[in-house]
């Protein structure tokens, strides 16, 4: 009897789900056929472009206004699909199976890899066809996608820097002290935060500084003119690797002093995601190194105010040290991502033209505004040539960036979309930073960066926590060079940067 009951439940569930599945797939087919007829008056063949990248929250095709507008503009179907994780695996299996999408997101390493395997279309002979793109992203960025002088992908221009120290203004006020401007003052303020009960609750539950692992110390390294561990940069016109910077030991020594005085988050190495943000919001830390979105977006402001309505965070300029002040290190050679075209698309010139058309369109004035801000009149209005977003943009616009195949003019975009945070954006962007060149250096063959990275991360942590005396610093570098073959990296950087004319 019970068996029959369960059996009927199961068949009921089965029928319901079959129904749901059948219904949804029917919707999908009717959906696409509508867009077919609307996008395509004259052309007899409908070209379908398939694009893949990492990402999330792409709406269903019938709700995707960007897709619809793009299809109208170029007269072909634009089928973007994104995956929230395992993108690399998905890309790899599709390339291996010969199932090439027409445009796909890649990073620098993949460009190197795939171009050597002959999978990517060499764009160099087609550069005139995508002149709009070149104009839009700039020659410098085009070069970033070059391998042996051939362009293999379209670069999405880099973002502007977002990170700075932030400090609790209300704590400063409560204690009657000023925001620190030098490294020594920073230590003093952090100590005051730790010992003098700045939130006035009578409990010894507040500390000084936190951040994402070593990022908590970016401005301190900067105060000595030293790049973050492992970075390559120019110092007095010469190429230098941060480990060999004579000021590195001093920087490490100062950070060690900070940690010894107990003002730093004891578990700073566990802040691999946003744990430091939560700790700061909870009111445990008064100084945090973080990006402005994660502390000034409305949803976060709300969290901060719920915990303590008096809490006020302001940006703090990097503290001054022997080398002046630098807000950490910023890699000027990287790009957030690139988009590549598969080589075999050569055999389908009509489709290839459409891809170029798409890329040109999103780089044009009208197209660029579309993928940045949406539809004019709905998501934004033009007032005196300036873009003014409507409320609809905030509601629906979270996914537009997935269509920004050639990026966007960062500063203008951020200030328009996040008008409330304009001062923070500008402040973070204009801070002097040490310009790292690592993005311009390709990992040499036979070198395993992961092992070297683990080694130096571990040892640097040991130095600043006093678990290894700084007198052994030279030994550390020697081991890094030999056992971990870091010498290969140094040589590669020297050679490649000289070849690229970035270093004399």
């Amino acid at each position, binding site marked *: 009897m019970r068996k029959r009951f369960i059996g009927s439940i199961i068949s009921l569930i089965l029928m319901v789900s079959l129904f749901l599945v059948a219904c949804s797939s029917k919707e999908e087919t009717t959906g696409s056929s509508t867009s077919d007829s609307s996008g395509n008056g004259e052309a007899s063949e409908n070209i379908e472009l398939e694009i893949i990248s990492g990402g999330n929250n792409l709406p269903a095709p019938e709700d995707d206004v960007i897709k619809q507008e793009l299809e109208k503009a170029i007269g072909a179907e634009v089928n973007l699909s994104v995956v929230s994780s395992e993108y*690399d695996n998905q890309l*790899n299996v599709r*390339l*291996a199976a010969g199932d090439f999408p027409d445009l796909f997101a890649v990073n620098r*390493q*993949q460009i190197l*890899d*795939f171009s050597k*395997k*002959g*999978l990517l279309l060499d764009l160099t002979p087609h550069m005139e066809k995508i002149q709009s793109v070149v104009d839009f992203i700039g020659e410098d960025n085009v070069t970033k996608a070059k391998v042996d002088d051939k362009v293999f992908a379209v670069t999405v221009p880099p973002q502007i820097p977002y990170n700075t120290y932030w400090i609790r203004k209300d704590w400063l006020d409560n204690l009657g002290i000023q925001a620190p401007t030098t490294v020594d003052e920073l230590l003093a303020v952090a100590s005051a935060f730790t010992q003098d009960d700045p939130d006035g609750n009578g409990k010894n*539950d507040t*500390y000084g500084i936190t951040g994402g*692992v070593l990022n908590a110390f970016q401005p301190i390294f900067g105060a000595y003119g030293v790049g973050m561990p492992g970075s390559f940069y120019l110092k007095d016109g010469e190429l230098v690797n941060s480990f060999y910077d004579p000021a590195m030991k001093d920087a490490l020594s100062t950070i060690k002093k900070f940690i010894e005085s107990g003002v730093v*988050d*004891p*578990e700073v*190495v*566990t802040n*691999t995601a946003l*744990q430091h943000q939560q*700790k700061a919001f*909870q009111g*445990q830390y008064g100084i945090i190194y973080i990006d402005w979105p994660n502390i000034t977006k409305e949803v976060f402001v709300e969290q901060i105010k719920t915990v303590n309505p008096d809490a006020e965070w302001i940006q703090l300029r990097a503290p001054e040290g022997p080398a002046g002040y630098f807000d950490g290190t910023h890699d000027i050679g990287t790009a957030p991502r690139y988009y590549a075209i598969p080589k075999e698309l050569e055999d389908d010139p009509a489709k290839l033209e459409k891809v170029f058309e798409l890329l040109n369109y999103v780089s044009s004035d009208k197209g660029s505004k579309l993928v940045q801000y949406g539809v004019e009149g709905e998501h934004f209005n033009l007032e005196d040539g300036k873009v003014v977003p409507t409320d609809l943009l905030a509601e629906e616009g979270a996914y537009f960036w997935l269509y920004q195949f050639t990026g966007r003019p960062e500063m203008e975009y951020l200030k328009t979309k996040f008008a409330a945070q304009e001062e923070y954006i500008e402040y973070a962007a204009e801070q002097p930073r040490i310009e790292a060149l690592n993005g311009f250096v390709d*990992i040499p063959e036979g070198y*395993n*960066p*992961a*092992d070297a*990275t*683990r*080694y130096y*991360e*571990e040892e640097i*942590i040991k130095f600043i926590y006093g678990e290894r005396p700084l007198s052994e610093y030279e030994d550390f570098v020697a081991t890094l060079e030999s*056992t*971990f073959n870091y010498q290969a990296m140094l040589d590669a950087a020297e050679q490649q940067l000289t070849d690229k004319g970035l270093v004399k």
Partner: protein
Amino acid sequence: MELKAKTNKNTIVTERSRMKILMTSIWKNRAFYLMLLPGLVWYFIYKYLPMYGVIIAFKEYNFSDGILGSPWADPWYKYFQQFFESPYFSQLLTNTFLISFYKLIFGMVPSIVLAILLNECRVAWFKKWVQTLSYMPHFLSWVIIYGICIAFLSQGTGLVNRWFVEAGGSSIPFLTSSEWFRSVLVGTEVWQNLGWGAIIYLAAMAGIDTALYEAARVDGASRFRMIWHITLPGIRNVIILLFILRLGHMLDAGFEQIYIMYNVQVYPVADIIDTWVFRTGLEQMNFSLASAVGLFKSLIGLVLVFGANHIAKKWGEGIW
């Protein structure tokens, strides 16, 4: 002379009859082979056909040439070499084995004990509730469990440490100290799988003949003795089977958990083979390396399974 001839004839007869016996046997069991057929076909297509992929470990895999067409690595052991020659190789191996071993022992025993406790529980509603609660953690992702971990074990603000400090002790850096981290790893996994692991032992216990318990009760055995002499032996083959199977995966120490929970300060005790492969692969998209390491793990697993099975056979158990 004569004797030899006789022996030859006997041998021929024996061989022929052996074949005949075999053929008759197969025919007799044809229903079984029929049953096995769909499954074997599936295994062939979806498990064995893709196995040629293991040669990626010996090749410079090139998508356009395909797996078979790609050139051989030079030398053929190139990627194995890259793995073995890493300065961290022995540490990775040690960590992987130790963590796996702790998880194995501290995982199986509590689950078995829980199953016994549940089996002996005579209040039906209590048993049902506790069991349902106990396997719920299995459904929580490691991201969430890590968040809970931090709330409890964080050095500054974790609940546990706050109690310590209030009680006059000092806080313990559970998440950043080499001494405690492995315990945290093993402990959280045991907690997550305690109830889930008990399910299978309970199912096995349901199959034990109740007549045995009746007889023991009549003989005046205590509950404890009944557990020791009836329940445990009754699930013995399941315990041994699971033990052998888990041995085969000794070199998988729980990538997802460790990747989410580890940090630079605990690398020396928590970095395992899979996390190393992941970090190395991140920078270099290296199929061949991942394949080579995978092959290495499989071979070790095979040896362990064979070894364990051999020992198990001496006790009358064993997979084959």
